[in-house]
């Protein structure tokens, strides 16, 4: 029999497909629905200390080969969000709490509060490409990445994942800094910094002008990043970026990913995409005589 349960640090997943942060994960109802429709785990929207409205619309639009967004980290703040996490836990959802802060103190406070609310793991957002003072602005400095990871790790007992950006010159170095800080896994990649100018109105379409590109177009970038990181770190990698099919997930695994996150594909294949991808993974494994998913991880690193 083909088995696809997965383990990242001590986090056990019924399958390796995880809902990526920022997609249908603002309220418990949506996250429960996605979990029930087949995801192995859910990553919450990135949550900060205080409510943030995010940027005005247009904040997300579709381009030829993917989605461009600059939401601006909208979130109700950790105090309000706690009740959503509590609801998720009542429904036995495996949930990874995504948090963002501007310094290690904020990350630590948020991490502790998320853990208290009941999340199974944390994802530190050090890669949002379009929020001033957060995300990538912090995640591009090796020392800061290491310090934040160390401080969060020392204040919580649940696994800590660090989500890193493709918008860096030396991605493996940032991954190594997270590993040095004690991260249990690396999540790669966040969206790719991008822009669309509307030629009819002669202006950038997004209200924030610059945003992050996701979907099919960024898959080769994600594959390359995971491949490079796999060679330099000894902790698991969760691959994310442009995964639409089981074959895409397998490609990420061959590059070195132990699990994958899926976001934009909800648009092209609806919320049942997790179930569909798991089925496609199993079919591929059956055709190619694989019994356990672990046998695939990193095989392309020749």
């Amino acid at each position, binding site marked *: 029999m083909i088995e696809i349960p997965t383990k990242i640090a001590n986090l056990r997943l019924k399958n390796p497909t995880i809902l990526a942060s920022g997609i249908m994960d*603002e*309220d418990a109802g*949506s996250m429960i629905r996605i979990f029930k429709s087949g995801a192995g785990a859910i990553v919450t929207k990135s949550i900060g200390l205080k*409510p943030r409205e995010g940027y005005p619309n*247009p904040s997300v639009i579709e*381009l030829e080969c993917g989605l461009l*967004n600059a939401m601006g980290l909208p979130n109700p703040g950790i105090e*309000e969000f706690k009740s959503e996490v509590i609801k998720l836990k009542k429904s036995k959802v495996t949930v990874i709490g995504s948090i963002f802060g501007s310094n290690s103190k904020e990350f630590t406070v948020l991490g502790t509060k998320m853990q208290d609310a009941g999340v199974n793991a944390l994802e530190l957002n050090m890669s949002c490409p379009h929020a001033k003072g957060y995300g990538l602005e912090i995640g591009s400095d090796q020392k800061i990445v290491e310090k934040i990871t160390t401080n969060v790790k020392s204040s919580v007992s649940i696994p800590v994942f660090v989500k890193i950006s493709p918008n860096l010159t030396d991605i493996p170095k940032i991954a190594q800094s997270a590993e040095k800080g004690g991260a249990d896994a690396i999540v790669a990649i966040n969206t790719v910094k991008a822009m669309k100018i509307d030629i009819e109105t002669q202006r950038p*379409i997004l209200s924030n002008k610059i945003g992050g590109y996701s979907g099919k177009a960024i898959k080769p970038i994600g594959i390359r990043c995971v491949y490079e990181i796999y060679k330099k770190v000894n902790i698991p990698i969760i691959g994310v970026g442009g995964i639409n099919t089981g074959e895409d997930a397998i490609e990420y695994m061959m590059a070195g990913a132990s699990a994958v996150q899926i976001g934009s594909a909800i648009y092209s294949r609806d919320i049942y995409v997790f179930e569909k991808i798991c089925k496609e993974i199993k079919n591929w494994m059956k055709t190619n005589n694989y019994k356990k998913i672990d046998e695939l991880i990193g095989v392309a690193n020749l």
Partner: protein
Amino acid sequence: MNYPLVTKIIETKNENNRIKTIKFENNKKITPGQFYMIWIPGVDEIPMSVSYIDKNIIGITFKKIGEATNALFNLKKGDKIGARGPYGTGFKLNGKKILFVGGGTGVAMLAPVIEEAIKKKLNLKVIIGAKTKNELFFEKRIKETGAELFISTDDGTYGTKGFTTDIAEDIIKKNHFDLILTCGPELMMKKLMDISKDIDFQASLERFMKCGFGICGQCCIGDGIRVCTEGPIFNEKTLKKIQDFGIFKRDASGKKIKF
């Protein structure tokens, strides 16, 4: 593709001093009840239900209530806006005897479905309401369809003094209806659903929207139902399962705001 088509406004009409209609070209098929994401370049992009559906031309009718609608209100014929859509589900005219109830700007999106029902020779009664006389609009348009029209104002400056739901309660007692269609303040629609008892019921919900195509999660209600793609029109079976209906909505940050 979910990208705004930039188009020039071909006609504008002030319905009253705070409500305006803007018309632009469209060559897509639309079901009454569907909406567009309207981009006001440099300002915002907001969901707007369609209020006029003519061959190759559609209209939106809105009230000045914030930055985006104020900017939209000030646009003139020839100015550019972006439109992407149509999005969402439309009304389904199941049945022969139909009651329409529109409150405030909710009347705007009911008008094209009333016209469609008349074309299908259905038997209909329409109730529209506003806070006060000078906030009413589309009275003439609805009367011209031949539908039997009832009007209420909260302050009694026109029509019956009181709420649309007061008139509805009375009409429902005296008549048989197969279906009730409504759009307006959510508390009004909730009350109407309670009054409607076992009559089939469809209501158009409004939530803060960002993507409009079912991915960002901003407009989700109940157990993860996306108003933008699975709504905005919901029937009573779904509405009864949505714990948020008539209780709260979420602001741009995702924070709950009570009605």
